[in-house]
């Protein structure tokens, strides 16, 4: 038995070389997942509930996921504790090297960030394929690609997949990778939770993709009862997949909040925190506290479908409105989980490329926290057409309109920073400016929809659909792409081709606006969403939209080519600081060293102190250690 001493000044900790019975890696995880699924199905079906075999599928997915996590290695630490083995409370080393570590359990926040980035891009690709199928189907007023009953299944798959992506596509890759750097720490608070938040995502995506094998789920992403109660086994994918994503959101939030609260370096005061960290922090507040509500509601759905309880069945003492309330109590904060870190990215990048301090930093923080707070008080605007008490409508209309105030503050800060600035029109900056344009349209149409009369008229139409695509695609996705162009050199050591990047921006910006802007008109002309047919008079409009949607998808393929070529086939290492900006991550060498900081830095100034004659460095790396 090999032993070692760990720690400095503390008690010695003995380590043993005990091995688990099974090697823990991705392959073991997959094998155990298959076995777990089989066992779960057998047990569930054997219980004999009158449930159309939903119990078997639910238990199959659950057991499969749990055993997948065991196979990956998540049980090793708790088992070691349980057996009383010596444990090491730190995540200093991965067993695997090279590319293999990205396919296995790693507790390194940098590896997890890249794992997230790749997974999110792949999920976005699947969701994009769904979008293309939808638009192809809508080339004709009658069914074209899929029959009407499957069209809603297709829309549901697209929407849930994209919701998965939008939930985690900023905090996952960029939050995990850069927050420790930005606050000056060498560790995350809970590396295992951080890794767990990622490793819950692949099973969730696979389970969701498996839904069509069981007939899919004809409920959209909202999963409303009684559609959910009537749906076949495909809806079990929704329950388990969404529960996994909710769990990932919650554990990721706990880790991120604790890290920012507890592990900031000396000098990294709350008023020096980079605005991107504030965006991640506020989104993490929402994720941590909203996702448990969703988890509870999904467990109720699972119980209704397996044990025949009656949470959402009116005729047996339940109520579909219970689901609507619980779902949207999570669901509306959820949309701010999407957008708050996107605000953070845009406000982070604009000062760097405007070479000006962030105008109204504290106001921006108030704006982010204001959105965080108000987002808890707006959920019932989703129920305006569901028959809520009329007396409640004015309050929720007002609260929804009020949330445009902190959102407007974010715009004010962005434009205040851009005012009279010497703007570098880099590719990340172009995407930030694109974000401001698109999100303005999405936001203003949201204010319009928050009014009860317009919401009642337009709720089920393409107007509403165009509104949230302008906020999520035109807003969040543009911010994500800005972040990829900006941070890619630091994350991968390779720079993206900026000429292709500029082509990508203009192509995507034009195609996006020409695809989605006409959908406001389609909505006003009463074209209903989630329906495969429409009035023949709207065919030209729809063909136009589909054409530009294809071009939008093609622009993303160009982006994918740029990413793959630059990452895997470009031998040239990116410079350490290609943007010449103040943020601390760019002061570190490329490729990044294994250990973030040899010595914990002391922050001496903010990251946006541009325009000063002799600005202080953002951080003091600290004195050299005295020779032993």
């Amino acid at each position, binding site marked *: 038995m090999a032993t070692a001493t760990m720690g400095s000044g503390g008690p010695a900790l003995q380590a043993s070389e005990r091995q688990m019975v099974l090697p823990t890696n991705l392959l073991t995880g997959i094998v155990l997942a298959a076995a777990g699924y089989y066992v779960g199905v057998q047990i569930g079906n054997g219980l004999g509930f009158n449930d159309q075999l939903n119990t078997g599928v639910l238990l199959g997915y659950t057991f499969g996921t749990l055993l997948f996590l065991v196979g990956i290695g998540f049980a090793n630490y708790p088992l070691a504790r349980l057996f009383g083995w010596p444990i090491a*409370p730190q995540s200093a080393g991965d067993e695997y090297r090279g590319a293999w570590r990205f396919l296995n359990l790693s507790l390194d926040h940098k590896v997890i960030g890249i794992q997230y980035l790749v997974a999110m891009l792949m999920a976005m690709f699947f969701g994009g394929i769904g979008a293309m199928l939808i638009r192809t189907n809508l080339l004709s007023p009658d069914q074209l690609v899929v029959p009407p009953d499957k069209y809603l299944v297709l829309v549901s798959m697209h929407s849930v997949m994209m919701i998965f992506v939008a939930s985690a596509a900023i905090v996952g890759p960029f939050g995990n990778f850069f927050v420790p750097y930005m606050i000056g720490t060498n560790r995350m608070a809970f590396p295992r939770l951080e890794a767990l938040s990622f490793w819950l995502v692949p099973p969730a995506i696979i389970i969701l993709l498996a839904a069509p094998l069981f007939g899919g789920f004809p409920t959209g992403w909202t999963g409303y009862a009684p559609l959910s109660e009537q749906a076949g086994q495909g809806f079990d994918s929704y329950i388990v997949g969404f529960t996994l994503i909710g769990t990932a959101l919650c554990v990721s939030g706990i880790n991120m909040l604790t890290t920012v609260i507890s592990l900031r370096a000396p000098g990294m005061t709350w008023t020096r925190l980079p605005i991107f960290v504030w965006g991640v922090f506020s989104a993490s507040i929402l994720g941590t506290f909203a996702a448990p509500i969703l988890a509870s509601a999904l467990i109720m759905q699972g119980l209704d479908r397996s044990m025949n309880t009656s949470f959402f069945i009116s005729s047996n003492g339940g109520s579909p409105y219970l689901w609507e309330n619980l779902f949207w109590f999570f669901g509306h904060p959820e949309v701010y989980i999407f957008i708050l870190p996107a605000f953070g990215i845009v406000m982070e990048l604009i000062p760097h490329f405007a070479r000006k301090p962030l105008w109204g930093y504290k106001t921006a923080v108030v704006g982010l926290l204001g959105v965080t707070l108000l987002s808890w008080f707006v959920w019932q605007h989703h129920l305006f057409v569901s028959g809520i008490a009329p007396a409640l409508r004015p309050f929720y209309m007002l609260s929804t309109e009020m949330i445009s105030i902190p959102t407007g503050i974010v715009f004010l800060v962005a434009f205040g920073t851009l005012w009279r600035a010497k703007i570098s029109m880099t590719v990340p900056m172009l995407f930030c400016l694109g974000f401001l344009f698109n999100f303005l349209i999405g936001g203003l149409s949201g204010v319009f929809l928050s009014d009860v009369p317009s919401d009642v008229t337009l709720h089920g139409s393409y107007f509403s659909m165009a509104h949230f695509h302008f906020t999520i695609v035109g807003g969040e996705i543009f911010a994500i792409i800005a972040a990829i162009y900006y941070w890619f050199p630091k994350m991968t050591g390779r720079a993206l081709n900026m000429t292709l990047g500029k082509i990508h921006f203009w192509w995507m910006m034009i195609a996006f606006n020409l695809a989605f802007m006409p959908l406001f008109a389609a909505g006003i002309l009463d074209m209903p969403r989630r329906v495969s047919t429409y009035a023949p008079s709207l065919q030209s409009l729809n063909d136009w939209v589909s054409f530009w949607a294809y071009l939008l998808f093609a622009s993303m393929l160009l982006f994918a080519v740029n990413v793959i070529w630059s990452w895997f086939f470009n031998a040239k290492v990116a410079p350490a600081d290609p943007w010449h900006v103040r943020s601390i991550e760019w002061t570190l060498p490329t490729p990044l060293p294994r250990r973030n900081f040899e010595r914990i830095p002391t922050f001496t100034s903010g990251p946006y102190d541009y325009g000063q004659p002799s600005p202080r460095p953002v951080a003091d790396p600290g004195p050299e250690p005295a020779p032993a």
Partner: protein
Amino acid sequence: MAAGNVAEPAAPAFTHRGMPTLATRSPEWEPEVDARVARVGTRIWIVADVFFFAAWFFAFFYLRALNNNYDWLPAGTTHPTRGIGAVIVLLAIASAGLYWAGARTVLAQRVTARLFFWLALIAGILCFGVQIYEFRNLGFDPQQGGGYPSVFVGLKGVWLFQLTGAMLWLAAQIAQTRPMGDVIIRPKSAVIFGNFMVFLAAIALVAYLVLYFV
């Protein structure tokens, strides 16, 4: 693969399949830092769990107020025996209290602390057992419909699930009270787990008042 600018790490001193490995001195992993992180993280986790349970209490009051089809309490359904519910609550409180007491003496009187932990575990297991007994003798069948039966088995079920997890962690804490075990090295982190035990006991108490008396 040309990817991944994360520089290759030096080979760690020890590998432990899938587990973090021992490495060089690193002040950010000192017990004091871990205690701070555990304290903040546990509080956040407890607030998140408040939201989790709030959904179930919301379901209780919402469905009770609606009483759709007069099926909140279907005909023939009665509340389970209050005595059994009280025993469950008392055992949960005892388990939390014993852990709390043990965690505070873990450095000064390790053997006493271990005894307290064992007693806490026994109380928790008994609590689990009584809850299972109650589930098997409810006096109603949730499969027959009804808002109350649905909320009862759901709320009690998710609480029991969390209690099971807490008992497993408690067992791990006992295992780590050996000399140089993790609980001895990081006693403050061990104390913080008591907060969650107290929280679970509090939820048991509130659920008891709501499910048996309202």
